[in-house]
């Protein structure tokens, strides 16, 4: 009998601590499938963040480093510079990347570090129990915006991919979503391309993945998927924000 579907080798056979329905698990799987398909498990180093994915080192089979909150791109820079033929990725939430670690991501991209960032945007600080993040949508209810984010006092969400795309060191930036099967397939293609460009030594690559947090959004997983589709995608349009290889003949 032919095996048509199996657990990626880059993902360990352990239960995760993620809440039921959380899409962190899907995103882990996509990264792991890409590592398998590119045959790079033995030279990949992942940098986990502080956030719900703090324990990612328990799930990925490659070597992992657990960074302090927000510092993953700087740590990844050091790793990649020390071992230039390694494949280095960071896996970061929106609090980690777009709040406390904004300087690190901007400068890693600006320096054109040859690393790949998987940016999981769920519009909230999940791990600490659902406080407003810089990515929280206007009007979105969180623990620290009980009547919805008020842009007069709390300002506006940051569209990180569009911002990073303005930097010359960033060679490939795409925003994807995991709310549907077609979008999951696109997400995987984007992650694979980001890794491939890193392997070609082109520069900094980032894939922003819109993700759900049913627990802190106070919604069922199904409702959360719907909320993402109806609220997040209009504010955070999907698609390629930057691709220096666009138009190149393969």
């Amino acid at each position, binding site marked *: 009998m032919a095996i048509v579907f199996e657990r990626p080798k880059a993902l360990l056979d352990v239960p995760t601590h993620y809440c039921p329905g959380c899409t962190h698990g899907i995103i882990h799987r996509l990264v792991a499938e890409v590592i398998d398909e590119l045959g790079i498990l033995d030279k990949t180093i992942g940098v986990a963040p*502080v956030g719900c994915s*703090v324990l990612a080192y328990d799930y990925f089979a490659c070597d992992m480093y*657990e960074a*302090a*909150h*927000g510092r993953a791109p700087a740590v990844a820079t050091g790793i990649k510079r020390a071992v230039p033929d390694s494949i280095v990725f960071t896996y970061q939430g929106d609090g980690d990347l777009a*709040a*406390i670690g*904004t300087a690190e991501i901007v400068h890693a991209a600006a320096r054109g570090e040859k690393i790949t960032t998987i940016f999981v945007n769920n519009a909230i*600080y999940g*791990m*600490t*129990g659902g*406080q*407003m993040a*810089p990515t929280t949508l206007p009007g979105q209810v969180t*623990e*620290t*915006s*009980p*009547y919805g984010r008020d842009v007069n*006092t*709390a300002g506006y969400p940051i569209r990180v991919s569009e911002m990073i795309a303005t930097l010359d060191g960033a060679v490939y930036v795409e925003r994807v979503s995991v709310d549907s099967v077609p979008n999951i397939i696109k997400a995987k293609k984007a992650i694979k391309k980001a890794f491939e460009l890193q392997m070609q030594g082109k520069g900094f690559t980032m894939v922003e993945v819109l993700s759900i947090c049913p627990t802190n959004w106070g919604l069922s997983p199904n409702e959360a998927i719907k909320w993402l589709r109806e609220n997040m995608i209009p504010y955070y349009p999907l698609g390629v924000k930057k691709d220096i290889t666009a138009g190149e003949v393969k």
Partner: protein
Amino acid sequence: MAKRVSLSGNEAVAFGMKQINPDVVAAFPITPSTEVPQYFSQFVANGEVDTEFVAVESEHSAMSACIGAAAAGGRVMTATASAGLALMWEMLYVGASMRLPMVLAVTNRALSGPINIHNDHSDTMGARDSGWIQLYSESAQEAYDNLIQAVKIGEHKDVQLPVMVCYDGFITSHAVENLEMLDDEDVKKFVGEKRIAPFALLGQDPVSMGPLDLPNHYFEHKRLQAEAMKNAKKVILEVAAEYEKLTGRKYGFFEEYKMEDAEVAIVVINSTAGTAKHVVDTLRAQGKKVGLIKIRVFRPFPAEELADALRNVKAVAVMDKADSFSAAGGPLFAEVRSAMYGRVDGKIVINYIYGLGGRDVTTAQIEKVYADLFNAIETGKYEVYNYLGVRE
């Protein structure tokens, strides 16, 4: 009329902040302190306070925004823990040296690495020389009481320093206790409606704040800062006396528990004092002369008073819930032993590092510490630098 309520330590602190009604709170969430700014942001959203609440992007910015607000003459508060406090480090020193009173509630949590969310004192012990006054709290009641007194201590004209109010993560921050809260009006009267800043941006006189200070004046400014910390000793006691009149609850630099005729004593900080008091009662019932000192004020350090309180004991064990990696003992131990030197010499003074990263400390372990002290007196043999409850 004061009212009795059941609250967690974080709730008590958040409600205390609500009663104080500061001008600005800038904060970034971190376990186990998150609830403090979170509850507070809800008071703001409900219009129950007049505070500007800023959900900044990091603790470094939280403390920077607090400093800006205090420089502009505001009454300012925030909360953090562990790595959050560590990220504030640069700004802690700036705030203290600029003589800006602020109140920072710290739920003590172990510092990375390795990353750990549970209680020890490595965070605030690491900040012990940042120039902040440090008040420690055994319970939610003490955290609340310290918070309210902190405003008045820091803003006193002879002090003008920021104050950290420290209480144990999870153990005190999350456990619910019965405690007594003051009336809103009483708090308002106690701390005063507004902070009176002797100098501020757009204050009475033109000012530049935070300027360069080279060898011709830097030293004098540091000397004045040190003097302010000395002044704080007197002010802390004055404020405590006034608070006692209002509440009946007595606060000093430290609490002495069954010390009158004690032969041996433990010196400890925060919630472990509760466990240790229970052990003192058990051993006292067996006729053993044991006592306890719980430090409330670690900065300024009450060196003379502490030495005096230890005058009649033969042996002391200092329990540190933080290591200092000096290869010579923990931070509280170093302070206590140096306070005793030249004042009450000839005592046995030993150190136990315990509870790192939230390791539980049991009554049996504390009983062992007292037994070690009696044994040291009897045999004259003891180790100075010890670890309690660790696998070797």
